[in-house]
């Protein structure tokens, strides 16, 4: 295996010296060592911890329980509820973000005078800290003084103030709306970049052939941006599944368990009860479930690296 490409194509094959062969590893060493230390080591520790009954404030009572925590998990109704919520959470948030993002991108791809300004302003939700977003929307959703209820009451859409985040049937959907707002700019800019990569001549040819706007969209636009939609969609599924900070600040998982998703359940369990053994078990299980989606994404990306 040749380690480096020869600088001149006519170069005679001289065995590459060790110092040159080792060079890439030396260059990589700092990054690899740091990540081994702060990511892989803690991760192994997590897998290890999940086999123990470990409550942080009584470390001496820690004991090995094997797969006991996992058995407990599958019998835990909150786990199944959180799993269901996670499915709704991902299943609604990502398509909504993508749909709104697609619409935005199609509009921004047209010619109009303030296009640059509009594009800059639309990405504001993306730049805001999630804790600010969560608090901001709590204020908007507030049942007594929130502006959303004021507007809806004024327009007579609702007859009485709706407790958006306190009603167990509504809370999850209210947070999904917030996350849709936060995430659609990401899709918009990704899809916009994809749209700009479609040659104009395709549309010109299609309109000469008499294709309607809808047929042009289905046969030229959609195939053109399909790879972007797939990559951005997968990336977003992983990101949305993992993100729990907005939920944590908005409802803390409540009312009851109505807005518990799996990562949030793991975090709350470990944080409030200091039940690190069980909390880590939930986190590991969640990671394994997410692993399937991650594998698809990795396969796609690595295929590209090969090129």
């Amino acid at each position: 295996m040749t380690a480096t490409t020869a600088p001149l194509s006519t170069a005679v094959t001289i065995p590459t010296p060790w110092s040159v062969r080792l060079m890439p590893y030396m260059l990589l060493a700092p990054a690899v060592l740091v990540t081994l230390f702060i990511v892989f080591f803690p991760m192994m520790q997590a897998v290890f911890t999940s086999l123990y009954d470990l409550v942080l404030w009584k470390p001496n009572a820690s004991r090995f329980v094997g797969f006991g925590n996992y058995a407990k998990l599958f019998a835990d109704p909150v786990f199944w509820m959180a799993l269901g919520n996670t499915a709704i959470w991902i299943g609604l948030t990502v398509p909504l973000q993508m749909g709104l993002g697609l619409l935005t991108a199609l509009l921004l791809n047209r010619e109009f005078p303030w296009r640059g300004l509009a594009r800059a302003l639309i990405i504001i939700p993306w730049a805001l800290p999630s804790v600010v977003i969560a608090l901001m929307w709590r204020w908007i959703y507030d049942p007594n003084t929130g502006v959303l209820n004021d507007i809806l009451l004024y327009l007579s859409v609702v007859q009485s103030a709706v407790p958006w985040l306190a009603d167990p049937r509504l809370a999850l959907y209210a947070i999904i709306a917030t996350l849709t707002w936060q995430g659609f700019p990401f899709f918009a800019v990704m899809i916009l970049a994809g749209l700009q990569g479609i040659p104009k001549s395709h549309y010109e040819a299609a309109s000469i052939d008499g294709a309607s706007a809808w047929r042009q969209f289905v046969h030229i636009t959609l195939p053109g941006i399909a790879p972007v939609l797939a990559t951005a969609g997968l990336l977003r599924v992983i990101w949305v599944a993992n993100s729990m900070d907005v939920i944590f600040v908005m409802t803390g998982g409540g009312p009851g368990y109505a807005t518990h998703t799996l990562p949030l359940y793991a975090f709350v369990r470990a944080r409030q009860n200091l039940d690190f053994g069980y909390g880590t078990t939930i986190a590991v299980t969640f990671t394994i479930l997410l692993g399937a989606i991650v594998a698809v994404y990795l396969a796609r990306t690595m295929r590209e690296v090969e090129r």
Partner: protein
Amino acid sequence: MNKPSTLRRILTTDLPVLLIVLFAMAPFAWMVLTSLTPTAALNATGVSVSPAGWSLDNYVRLLRQTSFLGNMLDSLIIACGTVVLGLAVAVTAAYAFSRFRFAGRKLLMLQFLLINMFPIVLLILPLFVLMRKAGILDTHFGLILANATVAIPFAVWMLTSYVGAIPKSLDEAAMIDGCSRLTALRRVVLPLTMPGIISTGIYIFITAWNEYLYALTLGGKNVRPVTVAIQTLIGEYQIEWGLLAAGAVVGAMPATLLFLLVQRRLIGGLTQGAVKG
């Protein structure tokens, strides 16, 4: 093909875009209005929409009565530290990935991609236990390390694509002229990659500045970044929305301004990979 009239353009493009821009900006604009309304007025008549009812009262209280400036400093130290650590280890790694073909290259690249996908909750619990043992809980250093779990893999990937875009012939020419590999990296590749390094650094800064869960779990007492501090502005008995809004506006400002400043270049870098596919 007849050109669409201006009126039609306004109805089918400008108006819908305006609606989406309003949708994107309204919540934050509402927050700004809330922060400008003094608390007494906020409780009596609600958020003041007209400039007549505005005052900087909440901001003055924020700076006088809370330790918000100190919190900003904590955030600044952590974000800058993360940028330095992330870029320092990522630059050479990116150079190795884009210039050498070596055994294990694909596996190592996969490793960095994989780390980015890890649920933060899987890392946060063991990191808490480990940092408590090491005695770096609630320190700047601890939070810099925690933020680096996100920053390093991101920086490696971004920089690999930036370095990859610089023709190999340039560093080869420098090496023929007598430069060593490392000198070629420093004198030729680094200056050319600088725009990419800067936008990657800015993105790391924004992410670290906005980070909340690590800050809450691994810091919080001695070291309290703005994201955690904003939440503590919620009063003890009732929520002080005016003060909270002022904290949110100030806390969000640095990252938002940076983002707007570099958005074009940044998005170019972020979308590159996705669009090629």
